């Protein structure tokens, strides 16, 4: 940091020191304010999961209650929607992670004709607004006469997850030191052994991150799903529908569990990574 290098050469005046102190703490204060802003809605979601709402709308505070937490599954429609969303997210994550990782390997490890058009095909779905992705798939399914439902939702989710998997795995592969694999080859490992014992363990965190990203993108998607769902109701679609009539506090409970659950997973993954680096 500049502060230390400058101190060697000259003593900053009192004015400079104060102004630097204010500046460095100003940015910290701003950062903390921004984080508080990010967490404000989460705090509201968590708080209102303990509310006992009057009527159907859970938006004004009435009385403290554990009711929603102890009776999460009172409404079977919520549980059904949650189950459908989980199943779709698992299928989409599984397929998209495999397809996307293969593309990432090809893009980073091989020079081939059609590379830049491949990059373009990967980039385009991310630059296309979700309404357009949803609407165009619906146009295709309608023209093909394919019935809308679980399959069409899964197809759509796999499609938009692939690009995100490619980008995530690709950046991990590019960050890898190629000398590690060259070393394995120097030590008489054949191509398959090098891949199995050197490349794969090194890319694994990238693939895991891509899978996590796909899962949350799929689980959370409303817009594309809404176009291709037919009569099936996923969890975000349930929330959307309930928003008009009044959202039960159970939805806040599920939102809180999703938040704390994924926070725990990410922090655990970071701690494991740290422990491994130390070992």
């Amino acid at each position, binding site marked *: 940091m500049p502060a230390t290098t400058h101190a060697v050469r000259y003593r900053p005046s009192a004015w400079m020191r104060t102004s630097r102190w204010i500046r460095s703490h100003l940015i910290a204060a701003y950062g903390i304010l921004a984080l508080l802003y990010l967490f404000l809605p989460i705090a509201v979601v968590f708080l209102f999961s303990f509310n006992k709402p009057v009527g159907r709308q859970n938006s004004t505070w009435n009385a403290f209650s554990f009711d929603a937490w102890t009776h999460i599954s009172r409404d079977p429609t919520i549980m059904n929607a949650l189950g459908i969303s989980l199943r779709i997210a698992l299928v989409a994550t599984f397929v998209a992670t495999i397809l996307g990782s293969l593309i990432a390997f090809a893009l980073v490890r091989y020079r081939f004709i059609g590379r830049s058009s491949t990059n373009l095909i990967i980039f385009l779905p991310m630059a296309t607004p979700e309404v357009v992705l949803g609407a165009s798939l619906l146009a295709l399914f309608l023209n093909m006469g394919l019935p809308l439902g679980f399959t069409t939702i899964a197809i759509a989710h796999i499609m938009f997850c692939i690009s995100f998997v490619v980008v995530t795995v690709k950046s991990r592969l590019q960050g890898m030191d190629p000398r590690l694999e060259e070393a394995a080859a120097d030590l008489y490992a054949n191509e398959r052994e090098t891949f199995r014992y050197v490349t794969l363990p090194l890319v694994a965190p990238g693939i895991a991150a891509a899978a996590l990203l796909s899962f949350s993108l799929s689980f959370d998607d409303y817009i594309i799903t809404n176009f291709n769902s037919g009569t099936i109701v996923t969890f975000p679609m349930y*929330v959307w529908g309930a928003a008009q009539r009044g959202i039960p506090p159970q939805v806040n409970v599920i939102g809180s569990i999703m938040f704390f659950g994924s*926070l725990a997973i990410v922090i655990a993954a970071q701690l494991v990574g740290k422990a491994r680096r130390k070992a």
Partner: protein
Amino acid sequence: MVAVLPSGGAKFEQARVGRRKSTPYLLLIPGLAWLTVFFLVPLFSLAQTSLMNARQPGNPDAGFLPGFNVANYSSAMQAYLEQYARSFEYAAMATVLALIIAYPLAYFIAFRSGRFKNFLLVLVVAPFFASFLIRTYAWRTILADDGFVTQFINNLGLLPDHRIIATPIAVVAGLTYNFLPFMTLPLYSSLEKIDVRLIEAAGDLYAKPFTGFRKVTVPLSLPGVVAGTLLTFIPAAGDYINAQLLGGPTDRMIGNVIDSQFIQIRDYPTAAAMSFVLLVTILVVVTVYVRRAGTEELL
């Protein structure tokens, strides 16, 4: 999206060239086939739909015939020019606000957070694990008419409508909030890559801290600014969840129009034409913007 080829990997790639030419294609085929069938072909399907003729004009329930009715575009644009313009206006405002909020935050995490860096990054992303819709719905509670926030700002005399919810302010606030991590993360990753010695060198050459920031840090973080603004602007322009849940009936965006035309009214050609206009506009804006910013390696 942020795809700059590494120089280190080039040698390794060279070593593999010519060994088995078919391998990259075998790796690509399944994924690219999926994207072709379920992304590129649907776009053609959409284009075809946008040119269809109504069997009975004015009655979408009667169905549509394949055709080449370019007038669908002009009539759709005439009918929904307002929502179309509004989408880009709201998205631009949200992008600028997100940049103002995210830049200092990313700067703080990249340069001033010390050993808490990774933890703070987790905190930036964490709120987005709770569902998009649930978060947006929570803003409805926060910005409610009798809520603390609205009362406070209203008492300062800053609200022309004396309320926030169901006004453009709420929609822009929701868009800004919901796409903030897409702005923060690319900014962080480009700030984090900056060699601190360059900023120190500016100081050694008697640049004031702010001059050093303006002439060294900002230009070097430009790729992050470009990536972040695009990742915020694109989804914001097509979004309709915020407009629906937080806005009033006069704040509808183009996404709302496409959604209701496709799903409720079932006027497929109009909806398809609007989708195409949206897509093409965004691609043009992105291309011009990236060319201007001079960071073409981003794509």
